[in-house]
């Protein structure tokens, strides 16, 4: 049985639906992420799970029991807030002890659990300090410790890494994964950063305008996006408008205006003449000199319009004959040189038949 079940919840605010008929099931021990742009309803869902808000329709169940009417303080789950919301008048140890005191644990147990949890987040030496004396990353870890110390059934995390600088954020991501594995508590994580979602989660629910667009494992989400929005929101991608020219079992021929035919694969039965989009990840495209021959099914000529040297990779923006600008990422390690082609060079972009995905409109 799922630990948390969200059944057809809808939430309306003055004239608009923030959450529209969302159904989700989260298993015990899972690291689940709600990903979406700001205003997509992900924080509203989190607040409804925490009990600060209630759905207008539908139900939320924890361990098979409805949470309707249960106030936040009675729910066996804790939240890590984006602003951390550490109590400024309490020390680090006082903050972490708070949920245990609320649960009426014994003095000895509180002391032991606080020490254990602070050790878990590497803050043992900061126990007697006040929040204003800590750095951003340390505050973040106190907030995590406070959320975890009473071993909740579920830990909700609302953009907890949003206030950290880029380098620290990556460090905290690594710590967060290790921490979740160590404590075995189910995490429901909210973020607008697709990179964060991909790096951390077992499963991701991508949201747009109150709906879940796709709910899948990170690699499935990345390689097999369900629609244009998911394809575009998660990672870099080339999206080309196409019309289906031929379809036979696995093979698909797609016609792109002014370009010719693209060979692709798809297991679904697709009608000839259907319009959709062809989605192709930049790192699956190879860029060759226009005279070089490539043993790849798809080959289109164009001209390098821009290139960005990014250290490990080079991003080429190649303008095809129909004016479409395709982005290609080429690793720099393979060659001794930093660059293969210069701006203005005629080149050919190539990819395997199974590299891209056809998306229905």
């Amino acid at each position, binding site marked *: 049985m799922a630990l948390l079940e969200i059944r057809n919840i809808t939430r309306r605010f003055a004239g608009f639906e923030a959450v529209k008929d969302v159904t989700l099931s989260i298993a015990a021990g899972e690291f689940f992420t709600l990903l979406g742009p700001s205003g997509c309803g992900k924080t509203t869902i989190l607040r409804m799970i*925490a*009990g*600060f808000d209630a759905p207008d329709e539908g139900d939320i169940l924890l361990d098979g029991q409805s949470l309707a009417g249960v*106030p*936040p*303080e009675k729910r066996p789950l*804790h*939240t890590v*807030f984006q*602003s951390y*919301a*550490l*109590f*400024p*008048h*309490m*020390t680090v*140890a*006082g903050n972490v*002890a*708070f*949920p245990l005191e*609320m*649960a009426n644990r014994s003095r000895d147990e509180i002391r032991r659990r606080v020490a254990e949890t602070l050790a878990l987040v590497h803050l043992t030496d900061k126990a*007697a300090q006040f929040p204003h004396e800590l750095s951003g990353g340390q505050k973040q870890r106190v907030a995590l410790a*406070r959320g975890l110390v*009473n071993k909740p059934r579920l830990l909700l995390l609302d953009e907890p890494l949003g206030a950290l600088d880029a380098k620290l954020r990556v460090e905290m991501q690594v710590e967060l994964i290790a921490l979740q594995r160590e404590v075995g508590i189910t995490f429901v994580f909210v973020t607008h950063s697709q990179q964060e979602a991909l790096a951390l989660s077992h499963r991701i629910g991508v949201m747009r305008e109150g709906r879940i667009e796709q709910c899948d494992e990170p690699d499935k989400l990345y390689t097999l996006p369900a629609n244009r929005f998911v394809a575009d929101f998660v990672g870099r991608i080339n999206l080309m408008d196409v019309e289906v020219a031929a379809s036979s079992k696995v093979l698909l021929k797609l016609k792109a205006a002014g370009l010719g035919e693209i060979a692709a694969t798809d297991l679904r039965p697709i009608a000839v003449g259907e319009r959709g989009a062809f989605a192709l990840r930049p790192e699956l495209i190879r860029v060759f000199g226009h005279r070089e021959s490539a043993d790849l099914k798809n080959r289109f000529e164009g001209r390098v319009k821009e290139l960005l040297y990014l250290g490990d990779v080079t991003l080429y923006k190649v303008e095809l004959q129909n004016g479409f600008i395709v982005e290609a990422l080429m690793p720099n390690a393979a060659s001794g040189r930093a660059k293969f082609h210069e701006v203005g060079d005629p080149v050919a972009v190539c990819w395997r038949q199974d590299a891209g995905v056809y998306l229905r409109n």
Partner: protein
Amino acid sequence: MRKPEAMPAARAQPADRSKWVVTLPPTLFLLAFFLAPALIVVAASLRDPGEFGGLAPWPAHSFDAYRFLFGDIIYLEIFARSFFVAALTTLLCIVLAYPLAWLIARSPARRRDLLVLLVILPFASNFLVRIYAWIMLLGPANLLYTPFAVIAGMVYVHLPFMILPLYTNLEKHDPALLEAAQDLGASAWTCFWRITFPLSLPGIFSGAALVFIPVLGMFAVPELLGGTGDILIGNLIKEQFLENRDWPLGSALSIMLTVAVLALAGSAAWAARKGLHGTEAVT
């Protein structure tokens, strides 16, 4: 009068000099109109009273005023009563002001300004006029000239001085802290006592200082609303200067009041700091 080139630190940093320019006038003002009169009062308390008020001509001086003051238990009683009235007024102000300040701080931003305006609106009319209004209110109820009337008047006059600092403090509280506390298992009551109240202590302290000290010196309220047994130090001091014409005794009383207030404020600050360190040591 000001000659920058005559200043010894002519080569000082511009920021240094402008700091002086800004702080010098208020410093001079305080020296001239606060410290000097205070010293004059100290000096006056050591002189002899004049035959028709004022002070006796110069060399005559004595400790008579202090001897008299400490020789009669009635003065100690009035001091004790004054401190009791001030403490009670402060406490009642806290109890009454807290919900109001909280309500204002929790109101939508636009309504907040209006409510604050309502709190300070009474200042627009004269203080004595408002006390006379209380005479009309309390007279028919047979409560005039009673200790109750004095306390009611004191609380009424000083309530805004408690509401404003409390509101300023409560308004700054981050609502996320209460959500966090609730999320971690605290009931509404626990949220208040563990989060809101401790964080509002600085507001309570500044409000208490703004109420307690003026109440000690207040003579108009007990004079207009109180009975013969309700006089406080303020009345006593005023009497010495205006009716008894014993300036040295009035001065000595003023000094004793100042010393008592400073001692109280000092020990409160000391206790607060010690309490803070105490909590640090515990957690």
